[in-house]
């Protein structure tokens, strides 16, 4: 059967289509979006023989279930979780064949937050500005998965990887985020700048694809008044009026008016995407490269 598609049987709490996002349009107010754990998404793609930028599904905590209309090769990477094909346990972190008409179940994460389901040929929804990513801030790209939705698939580009499993980093028990100070550290008291990198924070349950929110000591401002809107980067540690730092993730706004006290190294953001609410967070001051 040539009908290459997946039917959504259980959408899960929040499952979105993701790829490498749509960088290059920030000046029009378009967020970059894309997989929050790009390394896991790229690994899933490699396991099924896709190019690294093919669109995958990103689940949130409780997985999803899909029925394949044709036989497909899939791989689940990122947050570890049980995988089942036709009710039988299958491998996580390795290529798995799902026969036509069979139910594929991606279970709840046993650690971490976001699992990535890569499918041979990639999810082939219509791209918007060169990307198939769902952007939850601006509403660009496909809507989050809903039960009964049908996801078209592309033609497989290459053969699945010949591996039994691939090593992946474990989700963090403690999230260590390396930061460089600025650009608006001078909007805060010396004590606040010190507090950020010496005091204990925790991941807040209010975190989402836009930002990793934290709970912990409020950072006190040295200046009052409003900062005129300015461009924001991935990893910016923005401090809203409540004083609790927010780390900007892929769906962050392109401009913002709260001061950025520091910026997290991009290499540390995949771990931030996998940190459960309550995970201890330490901001570690490092020198700019």
């Amino acid at each position: 059967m040539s009908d290459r598609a997946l039917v959504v049987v259980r959408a899960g709490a929040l499952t979105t289509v993701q790829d490498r996002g749509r960088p290059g349009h920030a000046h029009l107010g378009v967020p970059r979006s894309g997989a929050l754990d790009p390394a896991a998404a790229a690994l899933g793609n490699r396991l099924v023989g896709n190019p690294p930028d093919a669109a995958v599904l990103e689940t949130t905590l409780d997985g999803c279930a899909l029925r394949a209309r044709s036989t497909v090769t899939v791989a689940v990477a990122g947050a570890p979780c049980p995988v089942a094909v036709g009710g039988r346990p299958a491998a996580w972190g390795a290529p798995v064949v799902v026969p036509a008409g069979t139910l594929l179940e991606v279970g709840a994460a046993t650690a971490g937050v976001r699992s990535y389901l890569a499918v041979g040929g990639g999810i082939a929804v219509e791209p918007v500005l060169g990307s198939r990513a769902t952007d939850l801030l601006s509403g660009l790209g496909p809507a989050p998965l809903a039960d009964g939705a049908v996801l078209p698939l592309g033609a497989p580009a290459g053969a699945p990887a010949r591996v039994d499993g691939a090593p992946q980093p474990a989700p963090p028990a403690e999230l260590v985020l390396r930061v460089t100070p600025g650009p608006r550290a001078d909007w805060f008291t010396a004590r606040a700048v010190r507090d950020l990198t010496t005091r204990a924070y925790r991941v807040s349950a209010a975190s989402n694809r836009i930002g990793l929110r934290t709970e912990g000591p409020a950072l006190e401002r040295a200046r009052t008044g409003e900062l005129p809107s300015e461009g924001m980067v991935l990893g910016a540690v923005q401090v809203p009026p409540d004083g609790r730092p927010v780390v900007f993730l892929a769906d962050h706004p392109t401009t913002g008016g709260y001061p950025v006290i520091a910026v997290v190294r991009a290499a540390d953001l995949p771990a931030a995407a996998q940190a459960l609410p309550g995970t201890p967070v330490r901001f570690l001051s490092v020198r700019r490269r």
Partner: protein
Amino acid sequence: MRTLPVGDDALLVEVSSGEEAQALHAELLRRRAEGTLRVREIVPAARTVLLDGLAEPARWAAELATARVPAVAAHAREPIALPVRYDGPDLAAVAERWGVSAREAARVHAGTEFTVAFCGFAPGFGYLTGLPDRYHVPRHATPRTSVPAGAVALAGPYTGVYPRSSPGGWQLIGTTDAVLWDHTRVPAALLAPGTRVRFVPVEGA
């Protein structure tokens, strides 16, 4: 001009006025087009231009700190005309704040030539400058939960048009049928930084 490092590969360039930011933005676009500036994003804002994904950030920080930016050259192209009905729910209150009638407020707004200083908030949402200081108005203390697409609105020094329905705290003075954002169109955004805009009053619904 002040350059502030942002992480490992971005630079925030700060100037003292919106006009300077627009001129700096134009100059940076020119340098990217000629191939001397290698950067992923050039994001203008109120008083800054962000260079994100920048090759050689330290060299650019030093160079831009002492650079002189030419004023924006005269525009070759005509302003974009946005048809507008001055029928917003806040028009009367804005007019009262300005000390004029609603009809006169509409005339002032439609008589102004605007420039898109920068975009943000939502894809295709431009922050348009051009209204003199005495016409600046505050945003609502409590934002509306839903502002319709096409609403023409004021806040601070800016005029904006909501590309789609969303919550919003700006003062709504009118409505346009222009499509501000259409991702199937090239270009998707009707308004981009530097675009000049005029609002043209139209009658009736």
